């Protein structure tokens, strides 16, 4: 399966943001940020 080369940066940025956001939402964050 071929994908557009321009999608590569988008894919890795999206993957990073999704992974980070999910972990933050699950409570993995700095104690200073907890409310």
């Amino acid at each position, binding site marked *: *399966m071929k*994908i557009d080369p321009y999608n*590569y*940066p988008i894919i*890795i940025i999206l*993957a990073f943001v999704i992974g980070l956001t999910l972990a933050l939402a699950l409570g*993995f964050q700095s*104690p200073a940020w907890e409310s």
Partner: protein
Amino acid sequence: MTTQRSTKERKSLMLIRKWMLGFAVIGTFLIGIRHLFPGEAASGGAFDAFCPFGAIETAWAYLTSGQTLKTTSLLNFAIFSGVLAVSLVAGRAFCGWMCPLGAVQEWLASFARRLGGEKRHVRGKRTKAWLPLSLPIGLDRPLRYAKYVILGLVILFSAFTVYPPLHSFCPVRAVFSFKLNTGLMWSVLITFIGTSLLVERVWCKYLCPLGATLAIFNKVSPVRLSARFQSLQPLWAL
């Protein structure tokens, strides 16, 4: 026609990569510079708390006692999750596209090439500059396993330490944290700059334990830059 189009695409993609690495470097500098401002030191935790590898360093302590090592926090796991997600999708893409330390090493290697007599380097082409040096294969191959040894030692020592095992030797802290308060940190910084000028991405190739961790995911990740794309054919394979 195809070659012209793909040459343009390749250049654009490399430009995007440069921008991404630039943002990573600036972002890490901003995280490091916080403690120079009054009242900002504790904001979000210590510098180490933003390190993805800090999650591996503090994992044992967290799993066994529910507490993280000093200077680390649960934020390390969040950052590591982001890096892990990238690796699951695209192998070690983080190292080449997002790692600030890798970017600094590339810039140092580029500077070394200029010192070595090359005015303009074309990525992928054999360089005429005598710097940075290429290690002989007999030395290069076994040295590439050193990062796995370091990863094993870090995991082992993380069971006995209060601070993350790499806290005092970490080149990311030496370069970005603006806290060169020990002779050891200065030594790490000078060694890092010196070796990066001599050998391109020396830390990534031979010593980086995060790279060793992410290398595992190279086997399972479905997306990668096709080698054919590097030779100017825009074919990407899943």
